[in-house]
């Protein structure tokens, strides 16, 4: 279901972008000057000017989105414009280049622009798909919220703390062989880590998963009193729940990282792009 009009639903900017792209292609095709199509023809200058203007306008979003007091419309619409005009840049900039590439600052500008737009496309797809994935991952199927003022993630973290306390207490009542795997789960279950382990979101080497296997294995091989069996059932249940919750938190970390990581490329490269375009323009006009 669709409760809201999202940032991709804005048809106006979609059409503006399509018209800009089609007009660029038409101008490029129709205008065939002597000496070939490149950036130094009339159409080339026009496309270059347009591209430079678009880059400046699109970069302005970074400042504009932080102006919280300004009442100029919804940020959602600005983002729509950003998305669609950014995509149109692929056409205007490529056609501006006239497909002349060499090892120079001009081509560097073009490559940077493609990287910025490319990271932006990644961002669009992340923004369009991940929110739902995050909500499904942290849905009421796994989160049993006990406190109104806690977030789903906080609730899961509290759940793990509770389980850990129970596991720690249970160690006193269990046969000694179980001490090592339970201790392993308590001490070595990692939920974060470095950039790559967060981005992978993998639970393949989860200490709790390992502990669960070990405990089950030990139960299968040993003989225990009824009392011990009862306690072991609880321990297995706790470990299983902890494994599930930990995996869920790791996935959540991965999705949230993906929502942000592209900005680490998009934003610095935009700064580099602005510098390169400045250099490109100065070179073209003063040192031709």
């Amino acid at each position: 279901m669709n409760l809201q009009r999202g940032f991709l639903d804005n048809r106006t900017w979609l059409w503006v972008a399509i018209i800009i792209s089609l007009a660029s292609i038409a101008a490029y095709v129709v205008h065939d000057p002597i000496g070939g199509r490149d950036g130094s023809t009339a159409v080339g200058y026009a496309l270059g000017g347009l591209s430079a203007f678009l880059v400046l306008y699109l970069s302005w979003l970074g400042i504009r989105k932080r102006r919280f007091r300004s009442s100029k419309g919804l940020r959602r619409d600005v983002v729509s414009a950003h998305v669609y005009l950014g995509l149109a840049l692929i056409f205007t900039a490529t056609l501006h280049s006239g497909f002349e590439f060499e090892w120079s600052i001009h081509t560097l500008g073009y490559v940077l622009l493609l990287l910025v737009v490319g990271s932006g496309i990644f961002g669009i797809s992340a923004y369009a798909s991940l929110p739902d994935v995050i909500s499904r991952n942290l849905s009421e199927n796994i989160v049993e919220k006990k406190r109104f003022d806690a977030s789903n993630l906080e609730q899961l973290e509290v759940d793990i703390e509770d389980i850990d306390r129970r596991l720690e207490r249970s160690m006193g009542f269990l046969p000694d062989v179980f001490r090592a795997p339970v201790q392993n789960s308590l001490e070595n279950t990692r939920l974060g880590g470095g950039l790559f382990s967060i981005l992978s979101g993998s639970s393949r080497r989860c200490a709790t998963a390992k502990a669960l296997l070990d405990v089950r294995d030990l139960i299968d091989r040993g003989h225990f009193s009824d009392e011990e069996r009862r306690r072991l059932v609880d321990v297995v249940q706790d470990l299983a729940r902890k494994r599930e919750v930990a995996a869920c938190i790791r996935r959540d970390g991965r999705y949230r990282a993906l929502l942000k990581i592209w900005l680490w490329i998009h934003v610095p490269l935009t700064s580099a792009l602005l510098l390169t375009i400045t250099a490109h323009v100065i070179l073209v006009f003063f040192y031709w």
Partner: protein
Amino acid sequence: MGLSHILIERSGQLSDTICKYQKGKYIMATPDSLPLRTEVKFEADSRESILENWTTRVNELGVNVRYNSEVDTIEGAQGSFQIRLAGGETVEAETVVIAIGLQGNLRKMGVPDEDNGLTHYQLDDPKDYWDKDVVVVGAGDAAIENAVALAQNDNRVTIVNRKREFSRAKPGNISLIMSAIKDEQIECVYNASPVSVTENTIALKTPDGERILRADRVIARIGAIAPRKFIEAIGGVFEDGADFPRVSETYESDRAGIYYIGALAGYPLIKHCLNQGYEVIQTIAGQPVDGADIPMLAEKFQSIAQGRSVHDVLNEIRDNVALFKGLTILQLREFLLDADVDVKTPGETIIRKGEAGDSLFMVLKGSVDIPIGPDKTFTINQGSFFGEMGLVMGRRRSSDALASQEGGAQVIEVPRTAALKLLASSGTARKMMNDLIVLRKLQTFLSPDLDIRDLQEIMESYEVVQFSRGEVLMQEGADADAVYVIQSGSCAITKEIEGKDVVINYVPAGNLLGEMALLNNAPRNATVRAAIGVEAIKIDANLFKQLMERKQKLRSVVQRIAEERAASAGARSTANDQKSRIVDFLMANGIGEATNAIAIDTKLCVRCDYCEKACAETHDGISRLDREAGPSYAQIHIPISCRHCEHPHCMADCPPNALFRTPGGAVAVNDSCIGCGNCARNCPYDAITLSAKPRKRGFLLTWLLFGMGDSPGERRPAKKTADNKEVARKCDLCEDVRGGPACVRACPTGAIIRIGPEGLLEKIQEAV
């Protein structure tokens, strides 16, 4: 003034009641609007400084005080009273002013060995106790405050409640004690009463038999009452059901020459008491003065007085305005202090449709027109009132109200708290209000031509009923025995489709429910449940049917309504399971009582927290929104932020009345907030926080060069100081920000909306 006088005090000190307050207690000087007229200064301050100030002043003025003297009886008559003291001495006086309050007559437990020293009836300083077993008896404000303070000082506290729940106390204190019990800081024994005490135990009678608790101290806070025996012995008269003796407008009792002031006369506020003392002494000295409120009332009445005295106007108001009929002139004066009196020119707008007002208007003179159709108007005549929808039901104004074209109108506007006080204190007023609500509801629903005579039987037999959340008002398939007018709260209507309850509609306060079944004489076609606490007026179905039979014209009106409703119900019953579960979720989370809540579409939310940042940036660096917290279901997330409830829980118990509803519908806090935290505790949605203002955000250069402000992008938690107090901070719907709520504008993906329950349900109906 040089009058010969004697002040007889039972205890060894003056202001005994205030001395017995908890140490350091902050004492308010309400009502703020009332000027103080005495020689003794009194401003809101701590218990200690007020006492010190009073003692100094009493000494300076040379008041003749006789301590440790208790009065037994008063004999004689005006001009020569003989006041007999406990020691047998007699004091002669021409007039007697009794200002003993109620605290001298604390209610006792009435159990054997009560006076063995274990039991105290007050708590001077909770810090006197540490690591002790303390049993607090009582369930009122004093008992709760004491119990909580003791628990905070690491004592093991048990509170003994005679009843099943805490209902007598202020809502703020109730939530305080409930959370302390939940957190196991305090143990509570319900349905229990003390039966005896020993040196270090107290025995309780509980439903599970007798229970003996260890106690290093028992603190009994079970209220205070007017010493009826004493008052009646000296000629005071208690009217039927009254808690206080009767007094005249000059506070004179039924026995000439004896005056009662303060709590004993029904005025527990310190400022009232001080003023009354001044006024009574002036009267006795033969230089009577008007009450401190009279000049203020005179100013209020300026536009309508036309040279008449305040007393004449007061009498006129009481005679003209039906709701005031049951009040004494003293009560009316107190009440009108909070009200506004206005003369409206013919055709002038008094309220506008769609505004979020919650005050009540009374027509003092002239009449008021309420347009209800293209050329239909409804007239509200002199003495009647309007605006009750906003007050009672918390709804926006349902129509305009204009002063009559002929002659205009004089209206009294009564703010919400004062109006609620009136309804609470006067049964007559409450009944009158309900009568009119029923009458107007039936008039708007059926025909404006109906009058009170047609509805006589209905008016005499309706009853006001309460339903708690989830309770069923009417069951699908059951016989239709009654029609309901929802007074406050809201209801969800469900229908059984393929064995499942499917929500098909949501009905807010102000609507008529259950009339359908009466019209077509069929059993109920849907189930109606209270979505939140509901108060409804229940009208007997048979009377309704008889009315229809008598009035043929009504039948056709009703027939038409029935057909319209059947058509719209048909369109809605295509509802599916998912939809009804979402509606259930919203109702369970209190969206039913919201007027403007945030809903986040989790399919669009990229968790960037720009909503929170925008909120903080537009509101002193403190976000009033916690995006991540709060409940979610399917793709709807309700973050923690104010929903601007129809009947705001936060407003229930605000000492300085700092919370108010703006015309735009926001529940906002003004500068008079004292930071007591009652609103934050009362809010069931945790939407109010108490905090001081953080420092100004630093700029990169000033921070780098001079270390001014916080580092960019960082805000240190605010420090509270004397000037930077912690006060209540909550969403104000960005009414002072151009472009509306910053949270909504700042969202890059359009995930966040602000919406009321009706709008949200409509969206869900469309979307699913």
